[in-house]
């Protein structure tokens, strides 16, 4: 494999991890807001219990992605940063409000509601902003003025594909987080929360996949290259849909206790579904970072440096594995944490 291909694969894997963790994180923040004051279900408590110890780790993966992008593809920074200055800048602003208010909510009981609502709503806008960067990379929204790339805000904001991308991002986020929190509630044996999240997973699933397919149809003319690439690769996208159907069907299978839904199995299938979809999409996106001006080969760093960085990544994650295992056992498995009042 070419070094630059390896690099983009790693970067893409980091994006996949962050997309999953971020969906859980922002989604849980949203559900925590919705059910925070609802006495009929523990859904809010479950969401916040998951969120408290995990948001920092999720946040680190966002930074890992940015750092990996800059160090693997240093020659992409100038173009990316001039195009993405405003969306990423606003994202950072909201992320800060979201993070701090979420933590503050745990320490200032009287103001918990307003803090949690602010944090929940900003938490919903951030993924929308993040996913709105996808159409920018597809072509048609960039103009060069004096050799300097400019984002055509007017054209982007007026284009339906932006809103379809956002709708796709939000429904996906809420679907993934609902399925995960269903599984998490099951681990905590909290059945009121379980049923709440299952209910939401049931309607969000089909909508998310329908929107995903419709989004492809809204892509601008300039992006026809990626539509062609996607259509040239029906097997992977078909496989992704197949795993969605398997995951969705698992929500209806009765477990041996007579309760509907095999949460862990559904979660596994859905992760595979998105894994396949993201890699297939990434493959269709090659060789461009931004069509047609920026390719991965042009922006790649010196291969010898890349391999050195790779050793650092391998060593770093190897050291962290035991810590992650401990983390998993303490917060996602330990009944004393899951069931506390």
């Amino acid at each position: 494999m070419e070094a630059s291909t390896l690099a983009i694969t790693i970067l893409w894997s980091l994006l996949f991890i962050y997309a999953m963790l971020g969906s859980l994180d922002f989604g849980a923040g949203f559900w925590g807001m919705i059910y925070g004051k609802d006495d009929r279900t523990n859904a809010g408590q479950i969401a916040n219990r998951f969120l408290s110890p995990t948001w920092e780790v999720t946040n680190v993966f966002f930074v890992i992605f940015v750092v990996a992008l800059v160090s693997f593809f240093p020659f992409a920074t100038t173009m990316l940063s001039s195009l993405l200055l405003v969306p990423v800048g606003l994202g950072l602003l909201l992320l800060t409000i979201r993070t701090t208010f979420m933590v503050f909510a745990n320490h200032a009981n009287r103001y918990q509601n307003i803090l949690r609502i602010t944090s929940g709503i900003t938490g919903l806008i951030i993924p929308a902003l993040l996913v709105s960067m996808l159409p920018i990379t597809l072509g048609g929204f960039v103009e060069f003025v004096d050799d300097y790339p400019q984002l055509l805000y007017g054209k982007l904001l007026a284009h339906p594909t932006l809103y379809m991308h956002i709708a796709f991002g939000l429904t996906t986020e809420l679907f993934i987080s609902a399925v995960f929190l269903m599984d998490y509630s099951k681990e905590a044996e909290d059945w009121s929360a379980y049923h709440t999240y299952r209910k939401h997973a049931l309607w969000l699933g089909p909508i998310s996949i329908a929107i995903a397919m419709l989004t492809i149809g809204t892509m601008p003319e300039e992006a026809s290259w990626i539509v062609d690439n996607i259509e040239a690769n029906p097997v992977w996208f078909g496989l992704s849909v197949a795993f969605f159907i398997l995951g969705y069907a698992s929500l209806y299978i009765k477990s041996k206790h007579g309760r509907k839904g095999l949460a862990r199995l559904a979660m596994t299938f859905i992760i595979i579904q998105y894994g396949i979809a993201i890699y297939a999409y990434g493959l269709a996106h090659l060789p461009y970072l931004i069509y047609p001006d920026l390719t991965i080969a042009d922006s790649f760093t010196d291969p010898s440096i890349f391999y050195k960085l790779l050793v650092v990544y391998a060593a770093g994650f190897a050291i962290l594995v035991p810590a992650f295992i401990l983390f998993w056992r303490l917060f996602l498995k330990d009944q004393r944490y899951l069931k506390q009042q």
Partner: protein
Amino acid sequence: MDIVVMSRVLFGSSMGFHIIYATIGVGLPIMIILAEIMYWIKKDKDYALMARRWTKGFAILLAVSIASGTIVAVLLSLLFPNFMEIVGQVISLPFQLEIFAFLIEAVFMSIYLYAADRLPQGLRVLSIFFVAMGATASAILITDVHAWMNTPAGFEMTESGAIINVNVMEAFFNPSFVVTAIHVTLSAYMTVAFLVASIAAIRLMKRHISNEERAYHKKALMISLYLGAAMSLGTAINGHETAQMLHEQNPRKLAAAEGLFETTTYAPLSVGGYTSLEDGRVKYAIEIPYALSFLAGDRFDTEVIGLNEFPEELWPPLYVHILFNVMVGIGTLLIALSFLALFWKVVLKKDFPGWMLGLLVVGGPLSVIAIEAGWCFSCIGRQPWTITDVLPTADAATKSSSVSILLFTFLTLYVVLLFVTGFVMRYYFKRNPVEKDLAAQ
């Protein structure tokens, strides 16, 4: 304002905001470890309570620290893309390592915060130890990139601006790395010690507090005084080495710090005053004969290079002399204050008088001012360069005019967050006062 200035103001204020929380984030775990160790040795429950309360405060501040750290990390690429293009090729290693250091901190912080009651004591202390290690390592690694900007190494630049012959290790261990990393670490520990001392002193100045509470705050004050004394002294000794490093690696910056125009042997040290361009000297300063030469090279006849050796357009702004003096002045004051307080208590065995507590209250905010002045000195003193003698700031910055929108919104955010953090801290600790926790023990 032009775009370059706006980018600098935006990034500078983001750093200035972040550094307050980051410094506390690096130093507070050390205080928590000390409290945990004291508890282990003395079996005095006050220390366990101290660790718990500090951890609560830490958790609130850490949220802002992480969020603002994320801002700084990403803004750097957004605002100075040409700088990051070179960083990505030469010195991305410390950034990579920093992420892992931070991941360790985040994971063990969650464990210490949310699982402490489910862990045996040894494992609990170990997890806060990992938090401290992760935090300090993060600070050192980020400082490495900062040091490299001051004293770049490990690459060559061709005529056309291409980067060649990259040596990652040489860049990592650039000439000012070790001395600067020690400086940042020790001063962070020092700052937190004086901040905690401030809070303890405020409580001790209150008339109507119970004897239990008084004893509790005295214990907290003593831990912070010992740490503060040791770290402020350490920072000063290291500061001397920093001056020598500047003398060798970046004489232009040293000359600006000292307002020295002509190259001289037996150079005097100017304390206070401001650098006047018209007069070509520092006005209204107290001059200590030979001291600068001695500081720079351990000999009175050391030749110290003056600003006139460099073209004027490459001089940093002359007001860095004031920033430098604020940093050194406060550092010196804090050494005196902490040693005096310890002498009073440990040798004379007397109680802290009111005036001394008053001084200690001021010590915390002063140490934060010193940190801010130090960072400003180091970054403004490097101007007009982003990477010394390699990349001018004007070329490093973005050309996107949208910076103005971000500048306004971020500045508002920082002001609001400073107030909200203060409010939440006050609210939380008012709701959960020490008396209540002491009574519950």
